[in-house]
């Protein structure tokens, strides 16, 4: 049996004794496109950061391809929430993407010509070739998100974790990103994405993790994206959301899209 790309067992994380994640078990299949959905403060970012070994859990463990997490994260491309980076940093778009190539160079070895070619190709994929020499601070939010995506592409990882890549991007950028994600999936990569828009979830992902401190449900999208489970995830807290959720869950896809344009 082949080892799962991400295996999480009984994971508990708390900040100042207040639990944020509690007893989360998860096994992600290779080549799946997973959405993580849950209300604000549900622990979605915390889960991703714990997988990336940025947060030490109070209990449980994370295994990457059946092995130790510290080595495993070398095979993960992580796209952080956009706010987590200093955008005044004196680097150009190209420099940022080349950073993704350091995983493939040894100590002392410099970025080479082939790395540049890879980076150039990644830039093309996200439609940002014209911006290669721009300082990253002089980009719009959506463009910044594309740069992050291109950097992840340049890493050429087996697993990708992305924290809200669609936050604050326009419809065109969203389309670009989603088509790249689908491509990644085709190449057999495992992609995990924190997502907020219930209306598009069904269309984008093939697996879904519903999270609210605990794992509410995980599985193939048509089994998990149900009115009942979404209600359970959002509790009574977000009535506005649950309204959309229930409609989205019940109705066919064409109408989902219509609702999206209404929002």
């Amino acid at each position, binding site marked *: 049996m082949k080892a799962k790309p991400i295996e999480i067992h009984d994971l508990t994380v708390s900040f100042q004794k207040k639990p944020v994640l509690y007893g989360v078990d998860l096994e992600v299949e290779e080549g799946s496109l997973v959405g993580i959905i849950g209300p604000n403060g549900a622990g979605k970012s915390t889960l991703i950061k714990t997988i990336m070994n940025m947060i030490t859990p109070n209990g449980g463990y994370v295994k990457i391809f059946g092995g130790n997490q510290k080595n495993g994260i070398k095979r993960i491309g992580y796209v*952080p929430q956009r706010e987590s980076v*200093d955008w005044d940093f004196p680097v150009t778009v190209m420099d940022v993407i080349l950073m993704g190539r*350091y995983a493939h160079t040894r100590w002392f070895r410099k970025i080479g010509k082939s790395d540049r070619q890879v980076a150039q190709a990644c830039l093309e994929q996200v439609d940002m070739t014209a911006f290669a020499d721009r300082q990253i601070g002089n980009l719009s939010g959506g463009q910044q998100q594309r740069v992050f995506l291109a950097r992840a592409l340049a890493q050429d990882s087996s697993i990708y974790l992305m924290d809200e890549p669609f936050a604050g991007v326009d419809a065109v950028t969203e389309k670009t990103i989603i088509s790249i994600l689908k491509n990644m999936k085709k190449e057999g990569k495992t992609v995990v994405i924190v997502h907020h828009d219930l209306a598009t979830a069904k269309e984008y992902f093939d697996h879904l993790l519903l999270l609210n401190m605990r794992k509410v449900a995980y599985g193939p999208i048509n089994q998990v994206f149900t009115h009942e489970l979404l209600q359970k995830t959002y509790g009574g807290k977000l009535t506005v959301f649950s309204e959309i959720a229930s409609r989205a869950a019940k109705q066919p896809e064409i109408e989902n899209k219509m609702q999206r344009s209404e929002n």
Partner: protein
Amino acid sequence: MTLIPEFNFSKVFLEPWSTSTLINWNGQIMLMGFMVCWTCGIVGSFIVIRRMALMGDAISHGILPGLAIAFIISGSMGLGSMFFGACIAGLACNFSIEWLHTHTKLKEDAAMGLVFTSFFAFGVTLISMNSHLHIDPGCLLYGEIGLVPLSEKWKVFGFEMGNRSLWTIGLVFCGVVIGTIFFYGPLVVTSFDSTLAKSMGIPVKATHMSLMLALALSTVASLEAVGVILVVAMFVFPPVTAAFFLQRLPTILIGTFPLGIIYTWGGFHLAYWLDCSIAAAIAVVATLLFIPACLLGPNGGILWRLKFKT
């Protein structure tokens, strides 16, 4: 009595270079100034992009007790003991700050302010208690670059190598340049996105520590010449000024070289004219250059921004 001495071009700019003795003497001062500006400028660039400018302040003050204890124990000012003491104190300072802000509710800036002032005060107390050490606390603040040519000769196995202060800063400068060239990648990636660095197996903590050590070493090497104040100024002014004109880190790093030359050259002659401390004059020149850069610099300068707004 006039407040400002009359400006006389040939007296200010030509006289210091009129005889070979003067050229030799003042040349050493200039060389010292260049190397201090370059060393601190390079280390400072990395500190500033990491948003740790205050950390430069903290470490450069925090090494003082280490120096004092090294003097007291070894009874001399040997290079080895000085560097060793400074590194230990610098790291202690760094760890105290980190401990305070992770284990108490203190924020990082408050922890820094607390730690470095107490370290500095402790160092000054030690020094003034041991007056036989012949360290002038005032000199620690603003240094005496004019006396660099008088610095003792550095002896290696009995061979006389020449001016010790120049050798010290020269070695640190070379170390910093070589370190930057070899570890440029890890330095940039850990500064920009430490998670990415960690996931690639780049040792984030070790990189941070090495940078703190480089900070401590460049401070020690610069201290007797320019004092703590100018050390801190030289950590911050070159990268910040250059960033108004240049967009990429490599060019900013290279930009510290011409800036260092202008600062030292300008400061030296300004001090010659006004008959004031050279180190202070260098900082004044750095400020005078910063103001137009901040106004006119194409990369985020105030006037450019106004132009684009309207």
